[in-house]
């Protein structure tokens, strides 16, 4: 304390000695940043937008993470989850050491083992599978950057089986739908040019709750310049609240609306004639196809007034080509999703927004050479031809199909590596199948940071350190400008945890595949790659992000002739390819099943505070949103006699009942629907914060609407009713 005060005090009581005893440590708490501050570059790994940022430590203790000003993904500002990223490092419930499933007097349990034991076991099993069935029978499920190291390991071993939930449970329909139309997908980050859009149409796409940083920021920029936003959503989403037009559509009827919009654009001659003639193919068939789908027809399906359909169509046309019909991201909804994505793609073509300012821009990335390693062996089979033969149009792995192809003695896949994906909470009604697969698989490795539910099925669990404790592959995602970002360890790995690159290398060496990992530390690879483009690890450690000049134009030049990567080299409004494979060459609307009396559409989505189920146990984010609540319209609430704060269980059409979940009575949801945020209702008690908080939507999805074109799992065909709990909180 300050001497002057001390004197004042002792004068007061004449008892300086005793008093000063009372006052030890009475100085004001130090101001943040007054101590020794250290910083290091990172790339946020809390979701897949992968914003670049800087980690701050003060006096050796973690302090904060903030966005990198030069980063195009974040514009210098991380989102809620990224700002709370330190919580993933601090989480007390993290996996701590490798674990091996052991049989002890009839009972199975996980035994903490040394890394060597774990690796020996894995290598031994990989060998025996190769001997018994062939070296092509392993599959990697991956949703995260570190997965690339295991992919390298498995391809080197001879297995190319690979899948990400971000296809069959997420973007698949959009990527296929756009590829069929434009010859290429939308990519990630999505190539939407919203900051220049004058009109933005959101089909679902709950931007603001969906907190993909760059998306939200560019959308907000558009709002600031008062672009008109048209939001199509059965729920009064955050985006709807900021839109000029909110179309509270009846769930599952979007294709009807999209067809009606095309009808108006063509019928009223509002489409971009020049663009359509110059670049597209099959316009006549399209015009013919949509003739009967006038707004009055669509009204009966969608519940959206015909005049509003016309008005919004004209609004799009008025601002074209700076009119963006957003392709959406999580689009596995009703099983007709590839067709809906096609409809969106076609609508954009009519507006001439693809390749135009305010529509879809052309992305660029850095030509970054791969670190030289031997070419992997030629796989002895084409697993897709075997496992995914029903989906010839799909270039990627289909999670759910691969799970099915892993069950039973004669299954194709004999070993799984699961990196950074919590399958039982990610692939609808997959828990039983994963359990069955676990029976027949000879190897089941899970690489995770948390005791997620998937680890419960594994026979080996490898604890990875978080992105804040490791060197990750260079971020080189396509963007407005070619750009590189590095993610370097800010802290020492906690407990026994290790980075994925180290695990992959260790296993490789045990299989005599060491030549595929010819380095001691993955940082050498990063450094080498950076050297090739005139930078270095040393430089990037300092600057974190490096942007490079564009080489090509960001939009089509006026009147430029373009060779699209489709069969015909043109934008295919009418798809010969689809026709050839026996699908509708033009999007067709088929009505969806509606809820029975007393049941509601099970609607789900995101909350800004969390990423799926992976952040619920993150202390900093748990504090913001410790549970999810089921949104219930006041009409439904009175009917079921529930009010705010009551707890209910959700029972679906097949009798599956959820964990208890808190009721939120709100006008923001349609009377025929309820809404919950995905990712809650964890069941593994080792996640002490997250376990049994809120309801899990995935478990309630027993009615899956498979997409005949891309094989993904449509999730929005499920209905639930409310079962009030006795006690209310």
């Amino acid at each position, binding site marked *: 304390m300050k001497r002057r005060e001390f004197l004042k005090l002792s004068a007061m009581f004449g008892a300086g000695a005793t008093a000063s005893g009372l006052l030890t440590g009475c100085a004001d708490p130090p101001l943040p940043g007054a101590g020794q501050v250290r910083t290091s570059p990172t790339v946020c790994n809390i979701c897949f937008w992968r914003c670049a940022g800087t980690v701050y430590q003060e006096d050796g203790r973690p302090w904060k993470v903030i966005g990198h000003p030069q980063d195009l993904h974040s514009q210098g500002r991380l989102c809620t989850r990224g700002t709370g990223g*330190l919580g993933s490092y601090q989480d007390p419930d993290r996996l701590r050491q490798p674990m091996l499933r052991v049989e002890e007097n009839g009972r199975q349990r996980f035994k903490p083992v040394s890394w060597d034991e774990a690796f020996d076991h894995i290598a031994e099993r990989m060998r025996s599978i190769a001997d018994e069935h062939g070296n092509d029978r392993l599959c990697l499920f991956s949703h995260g950057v570190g997965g690339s190291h295991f992919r390298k390991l498995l391809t080197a071993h001879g297995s190319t089986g690979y899948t990400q939930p971000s296809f069959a449970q997420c973007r698949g329909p959009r990527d296929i739908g756009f590829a069929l139309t434009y010859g290429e997908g939308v990519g990630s980050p999505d190539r939407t040019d919203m900051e220049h859009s004058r009109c933005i149409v959101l089909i679902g796409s709950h931007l603001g709750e969906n907190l993909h940083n760059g998306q939200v*920021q560019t959308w907000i920029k558009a709002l600031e310049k008062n672009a008109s936003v048209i939001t199509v959503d059965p729920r009064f989403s955050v985006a709807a609240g900021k839109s000029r037009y909110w179309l509270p559509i009846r769930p599952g009827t979007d294709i009807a609306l999209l067809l009606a919009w095309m009808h108006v654009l063509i019928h009223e001659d509002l489409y971009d004639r020049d663009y359509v003639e110059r670049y597209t193919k099959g316009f006549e068939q399209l015009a013919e196809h949509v003739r009967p789908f006038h707004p009055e027809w669509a009204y009966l399906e969608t519940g959206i007034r015909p005049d509003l359909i016309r008005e919004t169509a004209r609004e799009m046309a008025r601002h074209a080509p700076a009119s963006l019909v957003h392709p959406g991201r999580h689009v596995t909804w009703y099983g007709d999703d590839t067709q809906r994505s096609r409809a969106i793609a076609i609508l954009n073509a009519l507006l001439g927004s693809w390749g135009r300012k305010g529509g879809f821009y052309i992305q660029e990335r850095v030509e970054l050479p791969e670190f030289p390693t031997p070419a992997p062996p030629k796989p002895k089979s084409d697993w897709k031809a075997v496992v995914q033969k029903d989906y010839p149009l799909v270039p990627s792995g289909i999670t759910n199909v691969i799970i099915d192809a892993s069950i039973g003695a004669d299954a194709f896949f004999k070993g799984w590596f699961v990196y950074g994906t919590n399958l039982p909470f990610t692939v609808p009604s997959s828990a039983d199948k994963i359990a069955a697969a676990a029976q027949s698989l000879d190897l089941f490795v899970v690489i995770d940071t948390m005791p997620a539910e998937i680890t419960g099925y594994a026979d080996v669990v490898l604890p990875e350190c978080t992105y804040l404790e490791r060197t990750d592959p260079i971020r080189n995602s396509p963007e407005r400008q070619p750009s590189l970002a590095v993610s370097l360890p800010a802290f020492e790995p906690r407990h026994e945890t290790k980075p994925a690159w180290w695990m992959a290398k260790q296993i490789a060496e045990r299989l005599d595949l060491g030549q595929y990992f010819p380095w001691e530390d993955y940082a050498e690879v990063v450094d080498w790659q950076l050297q090739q483009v005139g930078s270095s690890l040393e430089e990037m450690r300092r600057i974190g992000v490096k942007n490079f000049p564009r080489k090509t134009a960001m939009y089509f030049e006026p009147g430029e002739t373009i060779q699209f990567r489709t069969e015909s080299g043109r934008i295919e409004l009418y798809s010969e390819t689809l026709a050839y494979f026996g699908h509708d060459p033009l999007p067709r609307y088929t009505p969806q099943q509606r809820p029975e009396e007393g049941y509601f559409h099970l609607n789900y989505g995101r909350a800004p505070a969390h990423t799926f189920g992976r952040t619920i146990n993150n202390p900093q984010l748990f504090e913001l949103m410790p549970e999810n609540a089921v949104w219930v319209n006041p009409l439904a609430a009175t009917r079921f006699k529930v009010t705010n704060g009551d707890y209910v269980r959700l029972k679906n059409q097949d009798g599956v009942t959820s964990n208890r979940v808190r009721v939120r009575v709100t006008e923001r949801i349609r009377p025929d629907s309820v809404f919950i945020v995905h990712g809650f209702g964890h069941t593994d008690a080792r996640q002490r914060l997250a376990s049994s908080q809120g309801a899990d939507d995935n478990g309630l999805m027993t009615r899956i609407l498979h997409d005949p074109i891309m094989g993904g799992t449509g999730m929005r065909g499920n209905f639930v009713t409310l079962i009030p709990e006795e006690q209310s909180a």
Partner: protein
Amino acid sequence: MIRYAMVIDTQLCIGCGDCVVACKTENKLPAGLNRDWVVEATRGRYPDLTTEFRSERCNHCSHATCVHACPTGASHLWKDTNIVLVEANKCTGCKACIAACPYDARLIMAPDGYVDKCTFCHHRVEKGQDPACVSSCPTHCMHFGVLNDPNSAVSRLLATRQQKVLLEETGNQPNVYYLT
């Protein structure tokens, strides 16, 4: 006297709570204590609805009833500004300031027991930086600056946009404004 103000555009705020996490990390607040919070106000009946999000915190009132109530001078104005701070080593924990704040914007620091509150991040303002919440907001809907300067961003926003403050009737003259 320099009058600092925060101007928050409810048209752009998405209620993401980044401002809350940023505050807690920047200022190293213990778990379960908040200097700021986000309110959602939905008006109307389906389907005629409006939703407003508000990031709220201490208003650094020009008529700071909390400061008046403090018997020790622990609650005080920072330098010659309207930024209201609490000096921990002058705070007895009598909690009069808490009762005196119509916005319930103050909190009791755990475990020490002195009273804590939003500081407008004066430790950053001092260095010419925006408060942590403002500089983290992904929608750039928060603005911070000096009201005395008519050319400051905040002054210009208030001059051109519709606005409101919370609980004007208390007479506390709050300095956090909401553009509507």
